[in-house]
Every structure is written in structure tokens, then in C-alpha cells.
């Protein structure tokens, strides 16, 4: 797989491969990122090689499905962060600090899901390469529990805030 990949890269197709990704960022970034970016690319290339050496390539369609799942979770994480920012700006409790009880957990939940989605992608990819069954993710449970808890907190806070004034 690595050989065919190198060959097709050499043909000079115009997609965002490792060098293309680096070139774009380097144009816009400062001097400190000049060292950070090669390090990042080398680090992720090592991780990718380790993954490629595990088992054998799955059907590309399954890999793409795994990729879409990762992206969907990442979007969910971004939506949670955006919701937290919105709560911080637009919630209007009489006690100004109360909105943090809604906003901060939303943002933390988003960060946790972003991290977990990457780990889950790698885990699923490894399982598919080894022809092993996929492990269920705990992310849906965390998302459901988190949103439920934040909603209940929001309801209680709204009542307490109203009663206190």
C-alpha cells in the first residue's frame, strides 16, 4: 500500500497531501510554526505508519465511513462549543456568574468529544484492519448524559434565579 501511495503521489495529482498541507500553512504562519509543523507531520506520519503496518487494508468504503463518523463527531463537538459560547453571551440571569454553570460544561463536553472522536477513529480503523469486530463507542452515552444534565441544570437555575429576585 505504501508503494502504490508513493507512486500515485509522484504522478503529481493536485490534492492536499502532506506537502500540500504543509505549504499552505507555512505561507501564512510565523517562524515558530515553521519548526512545529514538520514535527507535527513527522509525528502523525509515524502514527499512520504504525496503523498501516497493522493487519491489511480494509474495503476503502469502510474507511470512508469511519472517516465520516469522525467528522460528524468533530462537528458535534464544535456545535457544543458554539452552544456554550452562545449561552455565555445570551443567557441573562440576574446573577451574572450563573451562566458559567451552563456554558463551561457545554464547552468541556465539546473538547472531550473532539478528543474521543479521534481515538475512536483510530480504534475502529485498527479493528477493521485486523478484521476484528468494532468496539462500541461510549461517546453517545456521554453526549446524552451530558446534554440531559446540562438541560436539568438549566431548568433548575432558571427557576432559582427567578425565585431569588
Amino acid at each position, binding site marked *: 500500500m505504501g508503494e502504490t501511495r508513493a507512486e500515485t503521489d509522484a504522478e503529481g495529482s493536485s490534492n492536499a497531501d502532506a506537502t500540500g498541507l504543509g505549504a499552505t500553512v507555512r505561507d501564512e504562519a510565523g517562524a515558530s510554526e515553521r519548526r512545529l509543523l514538520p514535527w507535527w507531520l513527522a509525528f*502523525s506520519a509515524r502514527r*499512520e505508519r504504525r496503523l498501516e503496518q497493522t493487519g491489511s487494508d480494509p474495503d*476503502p468504503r469502510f474507511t470512508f465511513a469511519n*472517516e465520516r463518523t469522525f467528522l460528524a463527531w468533530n462537528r458535534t463537538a464544535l456545535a457544543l*462549543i*458554539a452552544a456554550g459560547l452562545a449561552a*455565555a453571551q445570551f443567557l441573562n440571569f440576574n446573577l451574572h456568574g450563573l451562566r458559567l454553570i451552563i456554558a463551561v460544561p457545554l464547552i468541556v463536553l465539546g*473538547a472531550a468529544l*473532539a478528543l474521543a*472522536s479521534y481515538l475512536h477513529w483510530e480504534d475502529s480503523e485498527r479493528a477493521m484492519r485486523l478484521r476484528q469486530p468494532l468496539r462500541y463507542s461510549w461517546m453517545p452515552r456521554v453526549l446524552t448524559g451530558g446534554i440531559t444534565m446540562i438541560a436539568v441544570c438549566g431548568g433548575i437555575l432558571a427557576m432559582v434565579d427567578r425565585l431569588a429576585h
Partner: protein
Amino acid sequence: MNRPQSQSTGGTVTPPPNTDDPGLARERTALAWTRSALTMAASGVLIARAAFVGNLPVLGVVSAVAMAILSALTWRNGRAIYRERREPRMPKLPQTAAFGLLTVTTVLIAAAAIVVTVAI
């Protein structure tokens, strides 16, 4: 439809040539990438606005620029996959680099969001 499971009995099996695969999985994936790019651009606007409201203009500009760059890269990734949607082979993009970058940036944006939230 092909049943890839039945063909993957050997040790080092390359993916079967899916002659009946019209590239819909790749097209869906490309659309997912462009959707992610749009979400990122929108999140960038949101966090920049919040940072300016919270009197943190530097953080606002930095987050907006970071999200703009990431959004552009994400968009490019989507277009690259779309162009190759009819080729029945493994994606050749550096996935771990792209996914890791996405994850790290999302976590950093969350950290910035918490700072902004406290500052407002």
C-alpha cells in the same frame, strides 16, 4: 453488491476492485469534509465575536485566523476526495495528520472559548 468480507480471507488482501462501486462513499465523505469546513468557519465567526464582546481582541483575531486556515484546509481536503471519487482504492491523504490537526484545533478552540466565557 460485492461482499468484501467474503473476499478478505487471506493474510495480505488488497481491497477488491469494486467495479460496481459508483464512488458514492467518497462523494459522501467529500461532502462531510466540506460540511465540516462550513461548521468551522461559522464557529470561527462565533468565537471571534464572543472574544471581541469579552474585550479580548487579540484572542479573537488569533482564533479567527486559525479557524479560517483550518476551514480552508478542510475544504481543500473535501475537494481532493471529490476529485478522486471514482477511484476504488484507499484514500491517500495523510489522514492522521488531518484528523489530528482537526482534533487539536477543536480542543484549543474549546480552551479559548472557556477563557472568553469567563471574560464576558
